């Protein structure tokens, strides 16, 4: 990276470690001024709220009366709430469905697209188009598509093939898969592009070497392609899981957690605790649940990377 070589490596290291030597008296003030935006914005709107979340989770707060310290009561109340179990199950179900729908398809698409010699840009653009649509627009559009009457858009199309009208969002079993379908549509394009970039980055001489060894197409995929993009696959898997664990806009706008709480996710429950009671929210429980989710995701991520460290490390 650095092109300075040679004579005084020790001094060089000293400079690089301390940055460009900052002359204290004259430059100190300038440096600080440059730091102010970062400090103010992160301080007030990132670090302070994070600390505040910890404090709120052990308080009873409804913004009206003075907050009172209640220890771990909020956590206990959340864990005892039947909605909590439902939300956790639903979120896990959503994550699972999202993986089933949304993990293999982008890979297959990316593999096929990587073989396109000319006009690949068109493919990429088409795949990515749903990603740039604002989520609110996409959800409202799809909610109309999902109208359960026989003249709903999807029901009409399926009617051409003789498939009966489906209840889509009006059925407690159907609603979650319907939401996952839209969420996958809206997000798959991003993953396709990432995979495509990874696939195109595989060194062609590896393929040539395999060919010389007489490998068939399937063997090439299995022994060259997959190992090379292994890291990307693992990283996108964990990122997708973390993202789906926090799904909120879709269940809120499609069904508000219904019907019968079948699409209630953890984030939606946090929102409910904080904002759905017309006489004042239970911010303590909302903060407690947020922290529980954060803790779970952190542990999950650490465990995930520890488990897969042997698999992804040689890329």
């Amino acid at each position, binding site marked *: 990276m650095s092109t300075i070589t040679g004579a005084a490596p020790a001094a060089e290291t000293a400079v690089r470690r301390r940055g460009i030597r900052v002359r*204290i008296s004259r430059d*100190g*003030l300038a440096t*600080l*001024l440059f730091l*102010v935006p970062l*400090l*103010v914005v992160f301080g007030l709107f990132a670090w302070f709220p994070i600390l505040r979340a910890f404090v709120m989770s052990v308080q009873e707060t*409804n*913004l*009206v*009366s003075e907050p009172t310290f209640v220890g771990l009561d909020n956590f206990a109340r959340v864990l005892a709430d*039947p909605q909590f179990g439902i939300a956790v199950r639903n979120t896990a179900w959503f994550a699972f469905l999202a993986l089933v729908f949304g993990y293999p398809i982008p890979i297959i698409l990316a593999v096929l697209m990587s073989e396109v010699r000319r006009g690949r840009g068109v493919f990429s653009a088409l795949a990515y188009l749903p990603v740039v649509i604002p989520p609110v627009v996409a959800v409202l559009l799809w909610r109309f598509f999902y*109208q*359960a*009457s026989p003249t709903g858009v999807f029901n009409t199309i399926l009617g051409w093939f003789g498939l009966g*009208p489906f*209840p889509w*969002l*009006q*059925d*407690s*079993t159907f*609603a979650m898969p319907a939401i996952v379908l839209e969420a996958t549509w809206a997000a798959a394009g991003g993953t396709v592009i990432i995979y495509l970039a990874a696939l195109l980055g595989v060194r062609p001489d590896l393929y040539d070497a395999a060919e010389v060894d007489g490998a068939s197409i399937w063997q090439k995929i299995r022994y060259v392609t997959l190992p090379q993009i292994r890291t990307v696959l693992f990283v996108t898997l964990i990122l997708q899981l973390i993202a789906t664990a926090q799904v909120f806009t879709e269940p809120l706008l499609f*069904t*508000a957690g*219904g*019907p*019968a*709480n*079948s699409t209630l996710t953890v984030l939606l429950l946090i929102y409910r605790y904080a*904002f*759905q*009671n*017309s*006489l*004042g*929210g239970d911010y303590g429980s909302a903060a407690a649940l947020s922290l529980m989710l954060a803790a779970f995701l952190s542990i999950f991520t650490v465990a995930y990377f520890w488990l897969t460290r042997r698999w992804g490390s040689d890329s």
Partner: protein
Amino acid sequence: MRSRTRRLPWVVAALAVITATIVAACGGTTTSNAPSAAAPSAAAPSAAAASAPAAQHEPVTISVGALRPGVTQDAADALFQQIEEFEAKYPWIKVEPEEYNWTAPTFTAALAAGTLPDVFTIPFTDGKGLIAQHQIVNIDARVRALGYADKFNATVLANGQDQGGAIYAVPTAAYGMSLTYNRSLFTQAGLDPNSPPTTWDQVRTAAKTIAQKTGVAGFSTMATENTGGWQLTTQTYALGGRMEQVGADGKITATLDNPATKSVLQRLKAMRWDDKSMGSTFDYAWGTMNQAFAAGQVGMFTGGSDLYTWMIQNAALKPDDYGITVIPLDGSDSGVLGGGTLAAVNVVTTEAERDAAVDWIDFYYIQKLISQDGAVADAKALTANKQPVGVPALPIFDKATYDESQTWIKDYINVPTAQMTPFTSKIFDQPLVNEPAAHTQELYAALDPVVQAVLTDQKADIDALLTAANKQVQALIDKP
């Protein structure tokens, strides 16, 4: 290191400079709410302040939440005209209308954020809760100074009073539940729109006929945003059940799993899955149900008696379609769920603003009910802007006053009253029952999933769902 400590004063100085700059840059923000400088006082204002000599009035501006979102330009114009009339009568007061609509999920965010207008409306169910939390102003002295405080219907007024009887919120409207039906769909299905169903069995049969002959939902019920529980409670009351029982010692017991509620849910289940007369949409809330009805997609539903106005203003309802009758009552103890709206004043207001707020409440909401001039002026403003006049309501004073106010505006009534006689001729004979007293909105919220489950899951276990909901609500009631 010496350099670090020498830098410290610079840090402080730099931060101070930047902060001051930001303050200067952002300080120009104005919101339409009053500045929060005035300390909210829960103590009753002295009577002298309320009746300050007319000559000595400081100019004051108040924001009022009187514009429903999405309302037509005509409806907005009617409001503006009335604001002009008000400002002419009270020249020192300037009124700024704000878009406002009470729904359970959005109200609390607005409350927390302090973005409520100075005058806003809340349902009867939330009056006592907000009073207990000191979030609305004690306007007792000001209201009593207006002279008609003791003419209010006592049960109605109680929703806006604290334990000691001090008035914190003024009732502005009362409604009773009704069975609203689409006359055109009735005709299309071969039913007589002038003889709507009078028993629940007739409702069920009519629903089936409408569904078969016209293909739309014969009967529908709300199910989201707390309206599911609200309508379930309504239909429960109609069969004689109650959601909460108050013991002699004042202890409240949740009785969500009472036999009447089970009966209602079983009938809904049968209509949904056996008769298939409830169409294919089951996530209606208050607004979307009205919309669907106005669009001719619903044959009958239970809802308020005051919906005509909204449907005309927001959903392009064809007046000929609107039919309304009383809810069929069945069994002893059955009654009509009664609700209403209260007007309250935001605590984040100055004394002068509170005076102005009460003047506005008096002018805009009450005068048309008790004074001929007020009633006629209101009717004129509405008809001038093609808004409905004469929609049925329940009295918030007494029946005699109500009848009198109707005669005053007789010449301006432009709603199809003939279509409303099945309701207006019988509602005053039906017993009115108040909504459950404790944790009302949370009770409704607990019942929403029950209604949704029955309508969207053929295998829903009604008993289990009600038991769970009951447990949830009892826990809320018992929470200290």
